[in-house]
């Protein structure tokens, strides 16, 4: 067994022994590594420091063997386990370390650590699918207004190439997923039970479609039951892996408002769709908007959402910020095109190509890239030089 596999099995076994997010256990794993923590638990049994975090009975069976069997079963079901040591682990999940209240009485508020591992069904790499993602959540007992808005938002986000993340529940969640699937986009359902267990059962075919075109993910192992408290634990993951959370309809005590609160703690965008003032299913939404302390934004559709989450610089390739010569990393053609640009007068790609003595098709290919990387800017009639990088170059070279 390779080292990575050993870690995978250990993490899996640990996730079996405690509910996800357990602060004490996860802290210990972060400090010592999963293999050592598992050994410690198995060897010292009740005496181990982390013992009190572990709910399951240790004597029942060998968790390592159980984990290996589970991995084999996952392979048959086309599911896989992704761990933080994998390349595709989304870094956004690590932000979960920043929140949570150690002194809180309620374990849901105390145990908000990142997942030990994530079960995944679907063909996408986790980080790639979640790179540009927005959560769309809301009431299960949604009104027709809510389901329509959820579907529109799901469709609109997916057509703009944003991944739609939701919880796979009835109502808003389901329609957000369906909208995204209709647009041919990626949608991710974060479940509070095993990824092989459709819950609600009538969403079985929806989950199959999501697994085919998007991703089903869960912190719980295959076959795990959807207990009530697990939904609240799960919500922190929905908030963490997305750039923002949109609540479409929520009653006064809705679980989606908890997701929204988590998004706020994680410094993600919080968005709320208003509803009719007469609708009980929008009371929670309106209450959020009235509460000025919470930085919640009212959104009415995809343009508003994208305006927030797609803010410039959010998802762009990193601008080379080397202190000395930002142009050093450029290829010869790129440099020549940049030399040909002017500071004020916009030049069409054709003019730039002629000035730089470069084929027009090359100019058409490269200039938009230079815009993304911050060297050039786009104007209505062509391209100009972006001044700040120019200044850096000048001062550095002169």
């Amino acid at each position: 067994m390779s080292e990575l596999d050993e870690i995978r099995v250990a993490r899996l076994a640990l996730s079996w022994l405690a509910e996800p997010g357990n602060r004490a256990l996860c802290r210990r794993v972060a400090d010592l590594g999963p293999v050592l923590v598992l050994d410690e638990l198995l060897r010292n049994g009740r005496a181990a420091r982390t013992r009190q975090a572990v709910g399951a009975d240790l004597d029942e069976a060998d968790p390592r063997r159980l984990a290996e069997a589970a991995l084999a079963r996952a392979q048959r079901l086309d599911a896989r386990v992704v761990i933080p040591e994998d390349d595709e682990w989304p870094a956004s999940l690590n932000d979960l370390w920043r929140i949570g209240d150690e002194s809180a009485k309620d374990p849901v508020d105390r145990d908000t650590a990142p997942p030990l591992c994530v079960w995944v069904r679907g063909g996408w790499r986790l980080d790639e699918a979640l790179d540009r993602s927005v959560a769309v959540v809301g009431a299960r007992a949604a009104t027709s207004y809510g389901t329509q808005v959820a579907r529109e938002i799901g469709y609109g986000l997916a057509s703009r190439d944003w991944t739609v993340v939701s919880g796979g529940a009835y109502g808003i969640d389901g329609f957000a997923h369906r909208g995204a699937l209709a647009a041919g986009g990626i949608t991710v359902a974060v479940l509070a039970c095993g990824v092989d267990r459709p819950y609600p059962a009538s969403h079985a075919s929806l989950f199959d479609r999501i697994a085919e075109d998007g991703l089903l993910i869960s912190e719980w192992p295959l076959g795990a039951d959807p207990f009530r408290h697990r939904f609240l634990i799960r919500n922190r993951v929905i908030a963490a892996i997305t750039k923002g959370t949109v609540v479409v309809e929520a009653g006064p005590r809705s679980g989606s408002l908890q997701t929204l609160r988590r998004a706020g703690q994680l410094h993600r965008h919080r968005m709320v769709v208003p509803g009719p003032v007469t609708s009980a299913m929008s009371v929670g939404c309106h209450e959020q908007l009235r509460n000025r302390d919470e930085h919640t934004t009212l959104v009415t559709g995809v343009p508003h959402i994208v305006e927030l989450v797609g803010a410039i610089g959010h998802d762009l390739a990193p601008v080379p910020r080397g202190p000395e010569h930002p142009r050093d990393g450029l290829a010869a053609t790129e440099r020549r095109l940049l030399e040909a640009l002017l500071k004020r007068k916009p030049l069409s790609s054709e003019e730039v190509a002629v000035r730089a003595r470069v084929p027009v098709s090359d100019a058409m290919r490269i200039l938009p890239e230079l815009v993304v990387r911050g060297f050039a800017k786009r104007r209505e009639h062509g391209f100009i030089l972006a001044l700040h990088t120019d200044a850096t170059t000048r001062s550095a070279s002169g």
Partner: protein
Amino acid sequence: MSYAKVRSAGLVGVRGHLVEVEADIANGLPMMVLSGLPDTALHEARDRVRAAIVNAGQRWPNRRITVNLLPAALPKQGSGFDLAIACAVLAGAGEFPLAALDNTAIIGELGLDGSVRPVRGVLPMVVAAARAGVRQVVVPSENAAEAALVPGLRVRATDSLRRLVGFVRGTESLLDPPPPSVPAEPPGPDLADVVGQGVGRVALEVAAAGNHHLAMIGPPGAGKTMLAQRLPSILPELDDEAALEVTALHSIAGVLAPGAPLLRRPPFQAPHHTASMPALVGGGSGLARPGALSLAHRGVLFLDEAPEFSPRVLDALRQPLEQGVISIRRAGGDTTFPARIQLVLAANPCRCAKPSGEPVCICTPLARHRYLGRLSGPLLDRVDIQIRLEPLTTAALLDAHAVSEPSAVVADRVAKARAAAAARWSAHGWRSNAEVPGSALRSPRWRLPRAALSSVRKLLDEGELSARGYDRVLRLAWTIADLAGRTRPTAGDVSQASELRRGAVAP
């Protein structure tokens, strides 16, 4: 014997139909009755046929003549049945036996002097006759070359009724069609003539390779027309089936040059902006005739000064762009013309249209917006490539020593790219990238990796590109990749594709 039956062929819309012409000579007041839904031109056949028979030196039966065209319920039009009616009348009167015209269809118009004159649409008529199992056709000598394009039956020609009568009696022989002439299409305009216009050339090549519709916006003198005219030169030649289809349409419209060979080059139609609805989509009294749209079938329809066209005419293009056919419904029956076209639009940026070099235009932004706004909406939505052409700068002219690529080289790349696209989508039933719906391009199977999309995602999030525009850019990126021989678009391909939407009238 006082009854005779002769075969002929007629047209309904663009389809030929086999028609049987029967004549009955009975006792009664001398007169001639024509039945079987004839139109006005066909009614006049009575007088033409009578004069032609007499002037050809034959005897006109002075009895009651009933001529019927079968199937009687099919509307028939035009003068192409004259020759068949004359034969049926003469045979019915017992002037000659019909053995020589066994399994033969006769098509032709008669002059009063007994000469046989050419008719429109011989090609589809002969195709229909061949399909119905006819072994031989007799056509006017001017139409013989056209009829000879149809394989599977013998084509004979005649220049006069006298010759045909002589043939039936065994005293004279019919003419043979001229030997198939070598394709004599003069070389069209070539891309090598275009100086500069790099963006325009790229757009044209991508349009040809992916079958994308193209809109060019730029001041007069930017070379819009020049580029559009050269699009057919880089499109692949028509295959046999398409060539026959296109030639038949031109035959029906009566615009086929005499002795014309099969049209192999994709047609190019550039109707003037004052064109009426019937001129563009087809129409005319009674049953409709094909318009410029159908004459451009499997070729290029170029609308210069597109905003100047009447909005109704432009909107009439929507159905054909979607379905590849145009149906015209009339009280007398509906007609469906094929109209699978590649649309090229050209427009000035504003109404004043100052040529390049003039002082800046004085149109207000609102006026400019309104001018191009006449185009926007569902029509532009179907136009994948939307570019702005800048007037030639001196710099570009200086660069002119860089030799422009000739059409043949570009056409070669285009053909390879089209083959690659057709092979890729064949399982889905799409023939070119332009037909692929956006949701398919975003689906897991064809989705591009995130690294390839960064530049276009920026445009999307900044609102410079709509979700629909994004789908168009993805399509174009596939075409650009096909042209370069890549199996998947790269980041550069996507960037280049986004540049081909820069002129987008609607973002």
